[in-house]
């Protein structure tokens, strides 16, 4: 068992205090110097020095000191010194301090008594405590509450010691007596706590005797009462009937902390709908009444837990939960929306959507800075409502379409994606949506929103009037042709023809963007930045939105415009009886396309048109000149079909996820079965009650160790020295969250005694040794277990080097055995995680460190290679499996993982199958810190070969 650590103080190594100096100061009479020396001594001790010679000095010169601060520091000192020898027996010199402690316990100064009693709470050595017990007990009746308080705690800690029950046989009796007469709330709480931990039945007895006065008790005591109730009911489920009344009476307590605790207790005690409802109500009240964001968030967490266990009850509370949206904090709003979205039923959907709509309208009026993000959240929420319950779509879609021209690009994109989905799934709404879209199209400012809107126009304008107004809208938004004045063209074309080479360089310098399907697309970096085109190109008319975007050089949008026009013309051919009109429209479309090409090749823009867009526009032109049935089918139907397929794919994935979730919550084979007819699921289910609190505390203090299977343990043994070395060493490495434990077994293989044997370790990377190495003596052919703790502070591959140094009796010089290096694997620190596409993109753009690894593998199949990478890096593939299907010879996928320190690791795999069957391409790793990018890159380089 490792020693517990009670305090940490930062120690500046720059000023090493020498033990002798401390000693001198301690021996002197100067109190401030003494205090200073004590502080230094404590800091040195904390820093790993043992200073054994100081103890006697302290006993002789510090113990008798009258000064209070010195006495308090002395207690701290006693708290941290080693009080036992290697075998766990108390050192004989410790008896020397007993007298002093006893004097302190009878000191006229009540505070000295109090702090000494508090110190006893942290003492584990029975031998020291035993002679002090009578003095401790005397203090139970002291008139000063400060002393009584601490005396009770001291009694509790002594009683809890292994032999405590023999030391203090009648402690529960005494404390019970104290409890009955005690007036100080804190002392009363401590007394009750003592009974609670040491003699539970007495505590319950006391509680039940004073059941009617519980509501008048102090807040602190009430908290312990609730804790007691939880514990009693956990062990003895039949008893809970007695306690529910107490909880209900406490629900009206003045202290919010108590109320919160009550609700928690109620939930853990009962799953009867009334109880859950009461708890949920309490939480909702806290949610509204507390202004602190932390409280709100944690209460929302609790509600979320309630939601997953008792959804049917929470459904009724949905409007109360929604009220939390009034908080300006985005995190709170997000959590609230998350909870609410899962509680929607056909009955409450209209109410919820009404509320959400109101909130959306509110964001328009207020000028808060986060409004845009909030609106985006609301729109997403409405979106998912509309998907679940298509009937509400009609009520919200028009409202949302007002936001197409929103300056917040993200929310506008959300809206347009929403519209795209609704128009497909709700054919009834098609006409109204199209009309509306055509009306508001000119307001759209962002290129990405524009292109999506154009696609909708191209796909869903079906009737003659719609097609015609569609073409008209686009034309209007493009403004007057040509895009720049002819007079300049003569000079411009010359220059543009001379500099294609230079231009192509600038093209390649553009930042590549990843499309939703994981492929790279070349997109002009300027498209989303506000860019004011030169005035000469502006044309004579006040230009539409498409025009200004085109003039910033966004030719991808140009290609989209061209495609949309092509689609509309093809459709016009079907619905327009008059050939003349069709031809007229065709020529106009062709003119627009040609102008765009011209603009692209002119020198008035900093960047010429990119090849992809150029090809696409040219293709559209060819098509319009030379139409055919085959082509028409592709353009007018296949697009829509693949969109439908995408939607159904998405739905399928969602249902699968739901199914997977549902599978998890199914009962385990060894669960208790609740028979519906005998007693419905209203008893406490054993699972949720398993000593939750205790485990929680244990986990938090790190006491809780999951027992890994031993076979696994044996796999991770590292041999550190050779078999023929005089000292054989092997290590078992356990990686915890923030620390690494090396369990080193050292075996003396010689026939001599090795003295001052020392395991010296050094580290590379973000690792730090916690303790100084100690010296051991190793008998011939005996072995020793040495434990070393290493602290880790970030995710990266670390290396631990080491030596074993020892002396033998006849040779005085030290012998050194160098150990094998121990590599700490990064894989122990990262775990697969999920993030949204958009988040991935923003992180990809933000992160500074990129590591690019060229693919070099024997694996022939793209899919197989990706699986191999996923498996060897322990990451999660964000790209949907459907997008990876098919045999097209290339593959692009995004992987994501998170470290225990909360760092993100992004990986993009882009590979192509060469003609000779080999895979080529790159794996790019991006992260915020260099460590992850480097170590992950190394890992991939090492593993990607595959084959084995």
């Amino acid at each position: 068992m490792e020693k517990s650590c009670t305090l940490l103080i930062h120690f500046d190594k720059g000023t090493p205090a020498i033990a002798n100096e401390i000693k001198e100061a301690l021996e002197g009479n100067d109190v401030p110097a003494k205090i200073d020396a004590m502080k230094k001594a404590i800091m040195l001790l904390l820093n790993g020095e043992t200073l054994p010679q100081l103890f006697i000095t302290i006993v002789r010169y510090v113990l008798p000191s009258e000064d209070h601060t010195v006495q308090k520091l002395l207690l701290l000192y006693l708290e941290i010194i080693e009080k036992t020898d290697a075998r766990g027996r108390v050192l004989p010199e410790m008896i020397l301090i007993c007298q002093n402690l006893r004097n302190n316990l009878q000191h006229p100064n009540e505070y000295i008594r109090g702090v000494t009693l508090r110190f006893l709470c942290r003492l584990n050595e029975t031998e020291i405590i035993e002679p002090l017990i009578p003095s401790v007990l005397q203090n139970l009746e002291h008139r000063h509450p400060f002393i009584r308080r601490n005396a009770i705690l001291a009694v509790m800690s002594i009683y809890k010691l292994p032999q405590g029950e023999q030391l203090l046989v009648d402690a529960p009796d005494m404390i019970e007596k104290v409890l009955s007469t005690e007036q100080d709330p804190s002392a009363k709480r401590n007394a009750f706590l003592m009974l609670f931990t040491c003699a539970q039945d007495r505590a319950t007895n006391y509680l039940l005797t004073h059941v009617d006065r519980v509501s008048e008790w102090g807040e602190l005591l009430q908290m312990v009462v609730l804790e007691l109730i939880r514990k009693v009911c956990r062990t003895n489920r039949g008893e809970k009937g007695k306690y529910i009344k107490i909880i209900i009476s406490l629900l009206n307590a003045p202290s919010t902390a108590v109320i919160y605790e009550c609700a928690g207790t109620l939930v853990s005690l009962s799953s009867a709908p009334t109880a859950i409802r009461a708890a949920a109500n309490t939480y909702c009240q806290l949610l509204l009444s507390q202004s602190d964001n932390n409280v709100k968030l944690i209460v929302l967490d609790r509600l979320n837990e309630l939601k997953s266990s008792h959804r049917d009850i929470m459904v009724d509370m949905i409007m109360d939960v929604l009220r939390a949206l009034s908080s300006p904090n985005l995190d709170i709003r997000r959590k609230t929306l998350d909870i609410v979205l899962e509680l929607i039923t056909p009955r409450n959907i209209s109410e919820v959507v009404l509320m959400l709509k109101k909130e959306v309208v509110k964001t328009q009026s207020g000028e808060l800075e986060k409004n845009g993000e909030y609106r985006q959240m609301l729109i997403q929420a409405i979106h998912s409502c509309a998907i679940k319950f298509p009937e509400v779509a009609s009520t919200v879609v028009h409202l949302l379409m007002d936001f197409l021209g929103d300056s917040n690009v993200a929310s506008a994109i959300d809206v347009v994606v929403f519209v795209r989905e609704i128009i497909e799934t709700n054919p009834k709404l098609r006409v109204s949506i199209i009309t509306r879209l055509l009306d508001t199209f000119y307001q759209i400012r962002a290129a990405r929103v524009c292109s999506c809107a154009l696609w909708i126009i191209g796909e869903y304008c079906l009737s003659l009037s719609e097609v015609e107004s569609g073409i008209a809208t686009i034309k209007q938004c493009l403004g007057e042709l040509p895009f720049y004045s002819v007079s300049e063209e003569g000079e411009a074309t010359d220059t543009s023809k001379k500099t294609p080479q230079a231009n192509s360089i600038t093209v390649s310098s553009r930042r590549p963007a990843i499309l939703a399907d994981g492929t790279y697309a070349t997109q002009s970096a300027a498209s989303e930045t506000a860019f004011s085109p030169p005035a000469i190109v502006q044309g004579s008319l006040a230009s539409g939105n498409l025009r200004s975007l085109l003039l910033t050089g966004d030719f991808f949008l140009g290609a989209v415009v061209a495609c949309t026009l092509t689609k509309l013309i093809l459709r016009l051919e079907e619905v327009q009886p008059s050939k003349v009109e069709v031809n007229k429209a065709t020529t106009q479309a062709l003119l627009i396309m040609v102008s765009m090409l011209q603009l692209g090749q002119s020198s008035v823009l900093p960047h010429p048109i990119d090849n992809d867009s150029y090809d696409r526009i040219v293709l559209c032109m060819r098509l319009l000149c030379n139409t055919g049935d085959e082509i028409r089918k592709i353009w007018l139907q296949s697009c829509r079909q693949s969109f439908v397929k995408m939607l159904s794919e998405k739905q399928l994935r969602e249902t699968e996820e739901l199914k997977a979730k549902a599978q998890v919550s199914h009962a385990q084979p060894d669960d208790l079965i609740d028979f519906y007819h005998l007693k419905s699921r209203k008893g406490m289910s054993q699972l949720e009650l398993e000593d939750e609190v205790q485990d929680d505390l244990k986990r938090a203090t790190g006491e809780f160790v999951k027992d890994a299977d031993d076979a696994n343990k044996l796999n991770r043994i590292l041999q550190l020295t050779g078999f023929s070395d005089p000292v054989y060493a092997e290590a078992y490495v356990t990686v915890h969250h923030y620390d690494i434990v090396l369990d080193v077994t050292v075996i003396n293989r010689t026939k001599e005694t090795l003295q001052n044997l020392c395991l010296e370790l050094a580290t590379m990377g973000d690792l730090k040794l916690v303790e100084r190495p100690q010296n051991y003596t190793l008998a011939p052919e005996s072995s020793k277990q040495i434990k070393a703790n290493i602290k880790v502070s970030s995710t990266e591959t670390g290396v631990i080097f080491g030596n074993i140094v020892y002396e033998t009796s006849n040779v005085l010089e030290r012998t050194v055995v160098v150990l094998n290096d121990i590599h700490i694997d990064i894989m122990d620190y990262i775990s697969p995680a999920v993030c949204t596409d958009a988040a991935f993109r923003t992180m990809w753009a933000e992160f500074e460190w990129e590591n690019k690894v060229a693919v070099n593998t024997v694996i022939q199949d793209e899919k197989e290679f990706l699986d191999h990478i996923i498996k060897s890096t322990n990451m999660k593939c964000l790209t949907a499996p459907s997008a990876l299907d098919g045999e097209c010879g290339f593959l692009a996928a995004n992987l994501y993982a998170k470290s225990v320190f909360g760092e993100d690791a992004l990986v993009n795999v882009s590979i192509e199958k060469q003609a000779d069957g080999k895979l080529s391409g790159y794996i790019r790793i991006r992260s915020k810190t260099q460590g992850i990018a480097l170590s992950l890159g190394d890992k991939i380089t090492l593993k990607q070969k595959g084959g084995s």
Partner: protein
Amino acid sequence: MVVLAASIISKSGKVLVSRQFVDMTRIRIEGLLAAFPKLVGTGKQHTYVETENVRYVYQPIEALYLLLVTNKQSNILEDLETLRLLSKLVPEYSYSLDEEGIGKTAFELIFAFDEVICLGHKENVTVAQVKQYCEMESHEEKLHKLVLQSKINETKDVMKRKASEIEKSKIDKNRGDKGGFMSMGSGRIESSFSDVSISSSGSGFGSGSAFGLTTEVDSFSTKPKGRQPSSATAPPKGLGMQLGKTQKTNQFLASLKAEGELIVEDVQPKAGQSRVAAPPPTDPITLTAEEKLNVTLKRDGGISNFDVQGTLSLQILNQEDGLIQVQIENGSNPGILFKTHPNMNKELFSNENILGLKDPNRPFPTGPAGDAAGVGLLKWRMQSADESMVPLSINCWPSVSGNETYVSIEYEASSMFDLRNVVISVPLPALREAPNIRQIDGEWRYDSRNSTLEWSILLIDNSNRSGSLEFVVPPADSSAFFPISVRFSATSIYSDLKVVNVIPLRGGAPPKFAQRTNLITENYQVV
């Protein structure tokens, strides 16, 4: 509801001060604190971070974080309260809120943290209280020092006086030897007298102040005693909840019941009073004669005090039985003086040995079954210096041999009584372990806290009128084994008081009555 640690760390992640309130290893706490700066995000509007196992609640203070590490079940409202208090305390103790300032006042901060959180539980304190606790300014200590000082002064004065007396007596002696000059001597005496008077007034002042102070201390220490009954006597009411309950909670309970929850309405503590006193009388009329023994025996034989006090009490269950008279018969012990209750008819008693009320129409008061005391009718007292009256005499012989002390104790009981539940408590010098018992008639038990040896004999009758105990302890002064105290009880009493009959005043058959006699020790010591 447990705070694992309260810490201050710099924004760069350096741990400046950390105080842990539960047992945890150093590596664990260092790991937790090292992970924190990485977990805390920027631009968030809340100040807590949750990981798999713990929750951090923090507050930025200039270039530092004040941080509480709690478990995840912890009550956030309470933790925030604690954090708020700590954040008020930190600037009180550390004048500059940077690494250096905190480093300088690290210990003071730890002391302050200790006052706010106790074993992980929050204390209800204010900033002012914490400051007061940390300053440790104690009125009592000052008093104590004053008392000590005055005692020292007093002793010094006494010393001076003694010294002058000795000197004087020396001179007197010299005088006497020489034949003495009275006039000179008287002058000398006068001067020394004035000396004494000054010093005595000085000491008088000293003792006077000391007296005043000690009384003050006394009055303090009696306070808790005065406080006790107020809360102890509050009667437990089982129905209070019912009264306070509103209609709403009733509905709540009803609906809970309807849903299958088991609600116990009237909750009584199940473990009742374990202390069962004498079984309540079941007879309609009970007469109890009880004698209490106050005996002090000298350790080397002889009685220094022997005193028996007796009472006869009457207990009537039903009011209709109240009109009675009691015919008694007292033994012919001349040393016993009887005294009746003022309401008794004295003549009737002295003439006919009948106890009855002065007003024959008034009934005796009746009492409920639980009230064991009854009504006192008669009191008597007996004193004696006769050693043969002592029911149990104790002989204790400590003898030192080598570095051990052998103690042998024997008792001798007079044949007058059969004694029950005899316990002889012998005080021992402070011992680390139980004494070594060589020989014993009966049983023994060592009470280490009071450091006494209890020798118990269930019954002393004709079969064991005498017995002995022998044990060995480390060397000790023989006076350490005194005073020995003895407890026992017996069913016969010194005054052979007997109730012959109960006479109903209204006529009819004499009602049934029960008679009890009881002899107990009140204070029975060997000094």
